[in-house]
Structures are given as C-alpha cells and as structure tokens.
C-alpha cells in the first residue's frame, strides 16, 4: 500500500507532495469540527424525524446514509481524483471530455438481411448518429450458416444474418470505412467477422491502418452470462490473444476487445460485481497476452470496456468513476504497464435492457433518459440508448429515433456536457466511488486467489454469484420491498399494445438461396485449400488471423471456417446448474 501511495505521487512531483501535507493538516482540524457539528445536527435536528423506510440501500444493496459530508468522502483529492486525462482518471480519460467532442452516439442495430440492415444504418447516419454498431443474429454469433438446421427460426431475428464475405459487402455497401467507426457485437467468431470487415475495406481501397472500430471479442463473459460461446476456454482465449497481436501490427486504431460487464449486469449481478467481474476478466486477458510474449503497452491501449447504465442514478455515476480509477491502479501498479494509455479505461455504455418493462412501455423513455444521463455524468466514450419497446420486441424505426433523440437532448440541451465530471466532489458520489472501488477490489482479489477469472468462471463461481443476485432481486420485487412503476405499483388494468416491428419472414429462405448460389459460383478448390491451411494453423501455434483472412477472401462461409476450428478445438458444453 505504501509503495502504491508513493507511485501515485510520483508523476506530479515534490511540489504537490508538499502541498498534500499542508492540506492534510488543515483538513484534519476542519474535519474534527465538522464531526462535532454533524453529531449535534443528528441529535438536534434529524435524528428524531420519521423517515419513509427504516434503512435505505442502493440498487446493489449498499447502505445509504441520511447525509454525506466531507467526513465520508475521498480523503485526498490529488491521489484519488486528480485531473481528467491524468492518472488515476477518476474524472475522465480525456483532459477536456465533452467540451472537445461529445460521446459517440452509437445505436446497436441490425436485423433481417444485410440489405435491410444497410438501409437502417444509412438512416441512422443521416439522423446524426456518429458510429455504427452491428447486431448479428444468433446463427452468425455461433458460427453457423443461415441454412444450418440449428439456425431454423433464428435467421435475422436478433440481428443481421452474415454467412459470408458476400453478405458483409452488402451490409457495408456505400458506408465509407475510413470515416465511420464500427462496433461489432461478436464474440466466439470475432476473428472471422473482423477478417470480413478487413476484406471489405480492402475492396473499398481503405488501408487497415485507417480502420477504426471495436469487436466485442470477450469470451469470458459469454461463459459467465451471455451464452454465445462455441469453443472451450483455452482455444478461445488463444484466438483473443491472436487478435491482440494481429491488430497491434495491422490495425492500430482498432479496439481489439470490449471487456463487458453489460451482460453480467443484465443477468442480474450488482454494480459492484459488474465492476469486479469485468476488471477481473480484463486482467485475465492481459495476463494471458503477456504470458504469450506480447508487450503490455503494445496492446493494452486498445482494450476497451462496456458497461451497463442501470436505474440507481448516483450509484451508476459512481460505478463508472470507480471502474476507471481501479483499472488505472491495477494496470499501473499490479501489471506494471508504463504507457498512460494502457491505464485508461475507455468504455461504451448501454442503458439497462432488463430495467425496461413490458407494462406501460412509454415509461421506458424516462428510464432510458435517466440511465443515459448517468452514463454521460460517468464519462462514457460512447452510448447506446435502448428503445421503449424492447421488452416487447425489436425497436421500430420510430422508437429507435426517440432513443437517439434522448442522447441528443442530453448533449445539446441539458448543459451537463459543458464541464468535466460535474458530479465530482459530490460528497455522496465520492463516497460511493470509494466504496464501489474497495468492494470490487476485494472481489478481484478473491478471484485472483482462485487462479484468475477463467478458473473462477470454469468453477461456476461467477455464474453462482450472478444467479444469487438475480434471485434476490426477484424476491425483493415480489415481496414489494422493491418498487417497479407499472409492474408492482401504479399498474393499469388494461393496456393498449403498441405497434411493434414485424420482421420479414422470407429472410431465412432468402439467405439460404444466396448461400446456395455462392457455393455454386465460388472457387471450391480455393475454399478447400484455405480451410485446410486454417486447420493446420489451429493444430499448431501460429497466429490464426492470416489463415482466417485467406478463407474469408476465398468466400468460405462462417459455418465452414468455424467448422474447421471446431474440428480442431472441439465445442464447449457446460453442465447446467441452477
């Protein structure tokens, strides 16, 4: 601890160290007076008054006191808060934050065929969205072709169906890849979709150095919560390290992973657990890449994160700040990264899908606005706002527009983006930031003691923690201890059903026909050769990106490429546990 303190002071030098001593003495005298005054106030004013509840707790079950003062908040401004763009980044990763540029408004979208999704992307870009975020359907996410028997009924449902480079060319048609950044929610087959993106860029004449975007590529949370894994953990983690290393050489502007707490939170964990499990997964990826021989400062600046913005507004603001500070400390002091960019936790946020209610769906517009505001006050780099109808179906064009407008109103009308970290210094927010950081660190230490996140997940520890929290929440709602407006209070007898998005039922047949045509027209010999080379690379230890890229260029399908890897790596089949 002493060591860490010393290092925290190091960058700012002796002058500031001297000031610290001065301000601490001054502070000490002030705090004693404050302590007495607060005690008096409790006795004379607040103590005897009845309150709505016997005790108050955050959504994550942290105790909430009546009043916060400097007594309960950060003890040392310079080492705990500091300045935006400087270690420990509590107040933000950039020096000017949204005064320089707003967060990227990035709405996750995709459904049906590549043609339909391409039209929706162009519509969103025309409406002022500043980055793309591609949702893939489940067959694509699981490395299955659209005509695979297991894909029946799922093609084009939760996202766009992409079976080959041909589909990707249609998806990105007319979108300038040197100017638009693209985030792709793809995990187990992330390397394959990244290769398709690169191949489309080659055809557009855009050099890989100019590509900017993100692949989620976070397999650990798939085992823990999201469920779209294919291969067992070891080869999956190797694929991730291969992506880190390939991108460090060829795609310097690409975020190679989006280490995600979002889905674990959706699955029911608390804010503290979200920070802890996400950063623990991050440490696992970092440690593996370092063990594979990569220099931490060559890849860590391209790691990115993805968090949930849930309902407890101030707890969420504190969560983002705590996550940023804790990652900086872990990367600098535990991992030993030297480049400040390796310490920075840059993150995307999505509002909480699980907080949306099917009852009185218009109320969700308000929920989303509060959650989005928390993300902005927490310093997010990009944001997706959910549409009001997502507890019922995929959003309509109209509800997707209201969701985007919500961000624009926060950006252009609310004024909260005009100064950096406006809630910094709030006694309560600082107290919560400290508390979440400390509790998350304790969890991370437990996970590290088990042997790291991969082991903790393989043993089911993380899954059990998430399940317990989810069940606790459900019981609180059912007992009425927790109120959800429109669900267990303020309900309506009869509700009108809103207009919902209807998906084109012909997608599956359309995709199957396109695949059949592709298989007839492509050079079958070249495909076979590329797949054989890929299998050979998978059996050995070479980086898998080049042979995947060759297979993609030859128009091998996602099912064939994943199939080649499945034949070497096998498939992961966990025991179901409730």
């Amino acid at each position, binding site marked *: 601890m002493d060591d860490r303190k010393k290092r925290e002071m190091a960058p700012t030098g002796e002058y500031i160290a001297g000031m610290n001593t001065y301000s601490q003495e001054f502070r000490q005298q002030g705090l004693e007076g404050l302590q007495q005054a607060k005690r008096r106030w409790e006795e004379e004013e607040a103590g005897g008054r009845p309150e709505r509840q016997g005790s108050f707790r955050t959504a994550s079950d942290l105790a909430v006191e009546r009043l916060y003062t400097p007594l309960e908040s950060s003890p040392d401004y310079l080492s705990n808060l500091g300045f935006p763009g400087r270690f420990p980044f509590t107040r933000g990763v950039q020096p000017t934050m949204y005064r320089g540029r707003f967060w990227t408004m990035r709405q996750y979208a995709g459904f049906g065929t590549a043609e339909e999704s391409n039209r929706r992307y162009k519509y969103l870009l025309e409406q002022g969205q500043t980055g793309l975020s591609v949702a893939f359907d489940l067959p694509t996410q699981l490395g299955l072709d659209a005509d695979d028997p297991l894909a*029946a009924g*799922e093609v084009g449902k*939760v996202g766009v169906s992409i079976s080959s480079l041909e589909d990707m060319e249609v998806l990105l048609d007319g979108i300038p890849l040197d100017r638009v950044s693209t985030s792709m929610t793809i995990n187990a087959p992330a390397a394959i979709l990244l290769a398709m993106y690169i191949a489309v860029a080659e055809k557009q004449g855009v050099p890989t150095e100019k590509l900017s975007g993100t692949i989620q590529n976070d397999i650990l949370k798939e085992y823990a919560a999201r*469920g779209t894994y294919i291969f067992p953990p070891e080869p999956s983690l190797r694929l991730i390290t291969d992506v880190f290393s390939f991108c460090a050489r060829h795609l310097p502007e690409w975020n190679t992973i989006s280490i995600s707490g979002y889905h674990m939170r959706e699955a029911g964990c608390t804010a503290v657990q979200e920070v802890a499990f996400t950063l623990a997964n991050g440490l696992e990826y970092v440690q593996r890449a370092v063990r594979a021989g990569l220099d931490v400062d060559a890849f860590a600046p391209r790691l990115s994160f993805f968090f949930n913005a849930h309902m407890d507004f101030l707890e969420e603001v504190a969560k983002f700040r705590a996550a940023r500070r804790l990652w900086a400390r872990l990367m600098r002091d535990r991992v030993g990264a030297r480049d400040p960019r390796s310490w920075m936790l840059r993150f995307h946020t999505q509002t909480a899908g699980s907080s949306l*209610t099917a009852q009185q769906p218009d109320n969700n517009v308000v929920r989303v606005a509060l959650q989005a505001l928390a993300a902005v006050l927490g310093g997010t780099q990009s944001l997706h706002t959910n549409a009001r109808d997502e507890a019922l*179906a995929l959003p309509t064009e109209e509800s997707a527009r209201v969701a985007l407008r919500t961000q624009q109103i926060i950006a252009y009308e609310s004024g909260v983006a005009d100064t950096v970290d406006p809630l910094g210094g709030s006694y309560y927010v600082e107290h919560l930031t400290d508390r979440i950081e400390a509790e998350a660190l304790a969890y991370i230490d437990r996970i590290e003691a088990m042997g790291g996140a991969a082991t903790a997940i393989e043993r089911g520890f993380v899954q059990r923690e998430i399940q317990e929290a989810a*069940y606790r929440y459900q019981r609180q709602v*059912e007992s009425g201890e927790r109120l*959800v407006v429109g669900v267990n209070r303020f309900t309506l007898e009869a509700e009108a059903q809103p207009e919902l998005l209807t998906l084109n039922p012909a997608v599956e047949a359309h995709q199957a026909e396109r695949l059949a045509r592709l298989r007839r027209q492509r050079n079958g010999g070249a495909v076979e050769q590329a797949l054989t080379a890929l299998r050979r690379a998978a059996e050995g230890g070479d980086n898998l990106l080049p042979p995947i890229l060759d297979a993609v260029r030859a128009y091998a399908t996602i099912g064939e490429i994943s199939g080649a890897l499945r034949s070497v790596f096998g498939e992961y089949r966990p025991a179901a546990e*409730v």
Partner: protein
Amino acid sequence: MAFQAGPQGSERPIRVLIGKPGLDGHDRGAKVIARGLRDAGMEVIYTGLRQTPEQIARVASQEDVDVVGLSILSGAHNALLPRVVEALHREGMEDVLVVAGGVIPERDLPSLRQAGVAAVFGPGTPISDIAAFIRSQVRT
C-alpha cells in the same frame, strides 16, 4: 408462496422441466423461474442452453415431468415452440402442460395457444402467479 406436498408425502411434488430451445443465451429468467418454482415446492430440472425441440422432449419424457416451461427471448418462438409441442407428442407426452416465457409479442399468442402452449408469461410476471397457474392445471 410455500407449496406443501400432500400431508404424509402421499402425493409426489409437481415435476417441472425448464427448457431453453434454440440458440438464445439469455437464461436469467429461466434460472430465476427454476429457483422460484423449486422454492414453491416443485421439483425442477433445467436443461441448460441451446437445446433442440427433440432434446427437450426427450428429457421431459425421461424425467416424467408434469410441466414443460420454455424460455425464449430470441424471437424464434413461432418457429420453435410448436416444434417442442410436436416433439413432446411424439414422445407420447400429450398431457404435459406446456407454458412459455420471455419476449413474446401479444400478437403471437393466439397461434401459440393453438399450437398447444397453454400460457405465455411475459416480463414482470410474479413467480407466484406462474406457480398458481401450474397448480391449477396439473391434476391434484
């Protein structure tokens, strides 16, 4: 919410299989319902993720369950739920109660009912309601 089996255990508890048909990985709801029905006194088996209709029907038959609860949030319910019912019938389980939950728009309910899904419980349904429905439908 407590459900008591008959006085001297003269009556076996209701047996429930919770299944996740298709490729959907969202299983918070399935697991919470499984826990809740177990706490309500039922015996609950959970299939785990990514089960085909045939796999679900086979487990239902092997475990001789009274109820099959299917959780689906991927939008594939119109394609997959009727297939589960058909597969159950092929296993000779015509009498098993089939219920579903997840993100299923109201406009799809009539055809699902016709296909043999007795009830669909949307987001926000209390587990106590689901348990009460099951008890009202299964023998006893």
